[in-house]
């Protein structure tokens, strides 16, 4: 905890920038914050209590499958078009069970009077008498819910029954819960006089975006030029990013800013304008900047600062963010280590001191704010910044070099290739080479972060190192026992990286026989606890970077491209850039790298990107939503305004009785030289049930086009209304296109249902894809179904062809055996 206080907090500078006195005081208050006194027995004791409680609170007491009842939907009032989809109004009708006088009754439900029920919400029914909780099982077996949904029921108290869906309810869906009159009994023996039904609807989810779920694409912003082998180091905490080796600020026309941000549409785009200090004011930002040598620091939202006039072989920012250490080539050809303030001032050479011989410096890192650990051709040294005293921590053996040595950002650990280790032992993980002059602290405490857990990650004891594999050394010199260096199995690849907090180390596996993972990760405090990184690229990993604690990894690929993934294998972003020197920002939201001679920064945020194809129809989506709104509200003027000349009359085709509607799916098609883009969508129009008539629905097809002007509806087909009937209904269809740069491109089509499906009914015979010509598209695997989300997924190789439709056959079934009345098709994006 103590290290946190020394981190640089840029927000404090911004907050108190005009009052340096107050800023200093704030920093001091921050640094003097109380260190908590903690009884080590307390966390596990509390955890045990929580787990006991959790088993009661979170675990269902019993589960049952509901039985299907005749569909009976709520009565919907008339409401405005805009509110129709935005609020997805809900009518809760509590009917039946009212005794003639003084009998048992359901007197309240928590969903009554609500306009949009949270899909995660449990439903409570309150009775007017204490109930016989002993008959719970009969309640479980008798209760009915439509659409078919797995629920649990518990008695909160003798008067209150709680019905909890096993999975969140479907969005924008009518539900009906029925309590048969014989299902419950009060303690006094009373029963309901008739069945009780509760009708309600859930709030809508966000309308589906046209055509596709987004493909995570990194869109780097160029912030400066750099040599192809230059560094792009992103300092600790909020420290500035630094690059070296021929680095100059980018031109105003090509370099937006060092800060990337998400666009309003959620795509990954760099900031469109320079930061507060325009780059145009920099001498280096002329239209044709001359390459300048030296190291440059890129503070957030500030003008780049030149740190040195000569190239730097290595750069590192101090933990507090105030100082930058540079390895610069001196006049005699040897390297010098110079420490400067992050604003480029107060440069001071700290090594070598006096007339001591210099050497080349391959890497350096800060161990605290006053000590620098660095790698020379002879070994690993350290220098104290304040008194410039240096000492050697480790001497390379004969034949060893600085090549391939990797320092952890905190200077406490180093990875050494096998050739740099004295007296290489045999292939065991416990053998201990003898460092020539190493002094070290014990390995870090057990409080260090362990390798992140993942369902797919299985720690293995089968990783056996070979003689060629490298070693993990502890370098701290606070005295004490010298820990045993540990050989990292498979690390002879030499592609090794530490996490920003120096608590994890990962490496590309050179090919041990016992496992198939390509990347391995382990906590530095327990290197043998190796965990394979699931989902890592299967080949061609040339570069590797970890975020603060190894939860996100960036892979630089051969022949080109970067892939950023979570430890669990979720792809957060890709780019085709041929890059080197990958480095995450401290918070993991930005990735810096050198590509094609420039220092680039790309924002990395999960789930916030949009494919280019989607953006083509971005405006069409809004028009489509408005069009359906206008249909629901029977706004003839609005429908006319949104329809192209010559298009079918929406006012005439839209059934007069509908009072609800939403978009199910859409497909965006790019335009040609002679025609603009089009959006083909499927939307559902619903007539809600009343006390005297059943619900009806129809799935219409809407075509929107753009030819130089605004998006307008050019085609509309509205089949006749049909009874809602039983069985599952499709709520939405979306497609995730292949990730850019993916080695095995594939698309995933996701179909969301309103009812819990019988998983055995989800097959290629009940759910498939067809081209516009009616040909079935082969799937890479049988359809899968996730009961948590009620989503079925179809995976195909490559991109989904234009004009593809997903077909939901009548053989698909919900858990109560209900089937759709007829096959239904929905467009999916190509």
């Amino acid at each position, binding site marked *: 905890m103590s290290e946190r206080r020394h981190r640089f907090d840029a927000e404090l500078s911004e907050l108190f920038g005009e009052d340096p006195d107050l800023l200093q005081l704030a920093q001091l208050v921050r640094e003097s914050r*109380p260190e908590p006194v903690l009884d080590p027995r307390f966390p596990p004791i509390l955890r045990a209590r929580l787990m006991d409680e959790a088993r009661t609170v979170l675990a269902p007491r019993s589960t049952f499958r509901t039985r299907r009842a005749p569909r009976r939907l709520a009565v919907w009032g008339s409401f405005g078009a805009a509110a129709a989809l935005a609020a997805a109004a809900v009518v809760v009708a509590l009917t039946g069970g009212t005794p003639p006088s003084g009998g048992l009754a359901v007197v309240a439900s928590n969903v009554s009077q609500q306009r949009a029920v*949270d899909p995660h919400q449990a439903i409570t029914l309150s009775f007017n008498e204490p109930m016989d909780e002993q008959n719970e099982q009969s309640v479980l077996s008798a209760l009915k819910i439509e659409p078919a949904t797995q629920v649990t029921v518990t008695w909160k108290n003798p008067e209150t029954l709680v019905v909890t869906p*096993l999975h969140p309810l479907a969005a924008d869906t009518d539900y009906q819960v029925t309590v048969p009159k014989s299902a419950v009994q009060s303690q006094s023996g009373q029963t309901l006089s008739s069945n009780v039904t509760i009708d309600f609807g859930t709030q809508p989810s966000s309308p589906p975006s046209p055509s596709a779920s987004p493909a995570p694409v990194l869109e780097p912003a160029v912030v400066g030029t750099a040599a192809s082998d230059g560094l792009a180091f992103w300092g600790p905490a909020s420290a500035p990013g630094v690059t070296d080796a021929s680095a100059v600020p980018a031109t105003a026309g090509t370099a937006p800013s060092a800060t990337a941000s998400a666009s309003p549409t959620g795509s990954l785009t760099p900031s469109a304008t320079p930061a507060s200090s325009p780059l145009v004011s920099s001498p280096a930002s002329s239209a044709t900047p001359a390459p300048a040598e030296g190291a440059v620091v890129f503070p957030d939202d500030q003008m780049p600062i030149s740190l040195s006039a000569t190239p730097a072989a290595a750069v590192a920012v101090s933990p507090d963010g105030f100082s930058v250490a540079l390895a610069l080539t001196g006049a005699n050809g040897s390297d010098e280590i110079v420490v400067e303030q992050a604003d480029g001032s107060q440069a001071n050479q700290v090594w070598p001191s006096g007339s001591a011989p210099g050497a080349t410096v391959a890497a350096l890192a800060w161990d605290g704010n006053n000590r620098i650990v660095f790698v020379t051709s002879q070994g690993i040294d350290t220098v104290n910044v304040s008194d410039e005293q240096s000492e050697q921590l480790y001497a390379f053996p004969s034949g060893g070099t600085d090549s391939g040595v990797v320092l952890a950002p905190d200077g406490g650990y180093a990875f050494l290739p096998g050739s740099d280790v004295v007296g290489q032992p045999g292939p065991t993980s416990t053998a201990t080479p003898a460092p020539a002059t190493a002094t070290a602290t014990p390995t870090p405490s057990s409080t260090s972060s362990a390798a992140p857990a993942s369902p797919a990650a299985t720690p293995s004891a089968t990783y056996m190192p070979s003689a060629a594999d490298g070693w993990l050394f502890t370098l701290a010199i606070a005295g004490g026992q010298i820990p045993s260096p540990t050989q990292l199995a498979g690390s002879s690849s030499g592609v090794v990286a530490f996490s920003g907090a120096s608590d994890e180390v990962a490496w590309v596996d050179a090919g041990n026989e016992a496992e198939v993972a390509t990347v391995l990760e382990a906590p530095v405090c327990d290197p043998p606890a190796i965990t394979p990184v699931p989902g890592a690229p299967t080949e061609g990993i040339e570069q590797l970077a970890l975020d603060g604690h190894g939860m996100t990894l960036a892979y630089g690929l051969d022949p080109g491209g970067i892939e950023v993934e979570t430890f669990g294998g979720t792809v957060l972003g890709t780019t085709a850039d041929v890059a080197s020197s990958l480095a995450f920002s401290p918070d993991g939201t930005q990735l810096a790298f050198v590509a094609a001679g420039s220092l680039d920064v790309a924002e990395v945020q*999960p789930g916030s990107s949009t494919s280019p194809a989607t953006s083509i129809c971005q405006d069409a989506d809004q028009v489509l939503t408005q069009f359906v709104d206008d249909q629901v509200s029977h706004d003839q003027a609005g429908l006319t305004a949104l329809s192209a000349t010559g298009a079918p009359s929406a006012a005439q085709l839209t059934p007069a009785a509908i009072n609800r509607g939403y978009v199910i799916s859409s497909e965006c098609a790019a335009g040609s030289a002679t025609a603009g883009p089009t959006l083909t969508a499927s939307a559902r129009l619903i007539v809600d049930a009343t006390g005297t008539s059943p619900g009806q629905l129809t799935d219409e097809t809407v075509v929107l086009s753009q030819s130089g002007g605004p998006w307008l509806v050019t085609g509309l087909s509205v089949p006749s209304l049909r009874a809602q009937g039983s069985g599952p209904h499709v709520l939405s269809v979306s497609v995730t296109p292949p990730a850019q740069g993916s080695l095995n491109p594939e698309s995933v089509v996701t179909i969301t249902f309103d009812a819990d499906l019988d998983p055995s009914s989800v097959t290629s015979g009940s759910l498939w894809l067809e081209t516009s010509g009616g040909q079935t598209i082969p799937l890479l695997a049988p359809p899968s179904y996730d009961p948590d989300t009620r989503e079925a997924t179809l995976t195909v190789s490559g991109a989904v062809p234009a004009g593809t439709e997903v077909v939901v056959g009548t053989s698909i079934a919900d858990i109560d055996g209900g089937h759709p009345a007829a096959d239904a098709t929905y467009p999916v994006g190509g």
Partner: protein
Amino acid sequence: MTLPRAYEDQLVERAKTDADAFGELYDHYFGQIYRFAYSRTRDQDAAEEVTQEVFMKALRAMPRYRPSGHPFSSWLYQISANAIADHFRQRRPQASLDAAVEIVDPTRPVAERVVESAEAARVWAAIDGLPEQQRTAMTLKLGEDLKLAQIGEIMGKSEGAVKLLVHRGMVGVRQRLGISAVAGETL
């Protein structure tokens, strides 16, 4: 350590029905919540009491938790802030604030005055004397290093309002420490 958002979202969703997932959330956030509770109460027993209450409340509310687009920790901090407020409503602060802020000789550099004559407890005792909202914002910013935006989410305020609270809080601390701004003074 910050969990990747996608992973955290999955974990939170699982924790609605899975005790082990909730346990993982507890393991991850215990340190932050305990530290926050301790920073505000500076009493081990009180910090334990508050921390237990926070996680028990969170556990019972998990099935109803809805992601707001903000980190899960924001929700825990919200519960914590309420629990701490309840704690102080039931128990008066025990530290003597007046005794904690005796700093003299305003001509000496701020750093020297604070570091030498006001150890951690005394500096933070000055924060205890601030109004509740300032105290919470100050602790979250200077004790927890949270971003102003996240503090705003926790406190239900705009980022600008949080800036104002922290700024006023710092001015209040300076006054309570008996320090007046000295133009041109450097550390």
